[in-house]
């Protein structure tokens, strides 16, 4: 299956965006994002803490809906999903 991962703001600068990935069936969001982020240490460190958990301020969306980062380890990805990962917002 193919999914798209989008990083925004500082995370985009560190890791790129609109990354197409082919995770295995039953893969969780956190596994997918971790695998991609691990390619660049600075990007990984911006998103994950020393235990490999999402940092508290990181926001994750699956198809435009927010997913609690604490649940991202058990939230399964489906074919065609769009996963977005971004830092705190600052619009307005």
């Amino acid at each position, binding site marked *: 299956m193919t999914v798209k991962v*989008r990083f*925004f*703001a*500082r995370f*985009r600068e560190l890791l790129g965006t609109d990354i197409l990935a082919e995770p295995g069936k039953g893969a969780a969001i956190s596994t997918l994002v971790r695998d991609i982020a691990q390619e660049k240490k600075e990007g990984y460190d911006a998103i994950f803490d020393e235990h490999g958990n999402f940092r*508290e*301020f990181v*926001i994750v*969306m699956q198809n*435009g*809906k*927010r*997913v*609690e980062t604490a649940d991202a380890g058990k939230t399964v990805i489906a074919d065609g999903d769009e996963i*977005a990962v*971004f*830092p*705190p*917002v*600052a*619009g*307005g």
Partner: protein
Amino acid sequence: MISIQHEDVDIGKLINDAKSSGTGAVVIFDGVVRDDDIREMELEAYEEVALKELKKIAEDATTLHNLLHVDIIHRIGRLSVGENILIIVVSAGHRPEAYAGSRYIIEEIKKGVPIWKKELTKDGGRWVPGDHAHGSGKPT
């Protein structure tokens, strides 16, 4: 009009278009690029999601504050000092509703709409931290 766009807008026209026979007050919020020793500001949005959230905020503001008309235009891309970033135009029958509705909209945008700002300085750039430490509160 609810929009995320690069182009500026004609605020005077928005004000005229916000008026109807029941209008007693129009409130305009105009967020502007401030000169904090920067060259420019770069704005980025998760556009599809941000637009949906702006529409939801406009609907909620209309219901909660009896608004007659709402425009929210959030600009993205590179903006210079003094340029408009965010224009909110609301109209209502009376000023308390118009002021409250405008305030509600800007506060909700700052809480959770996925838009980011980077201040471009002579030394590089810095991402502006959000007003809300955790960015967006609980999932909705």
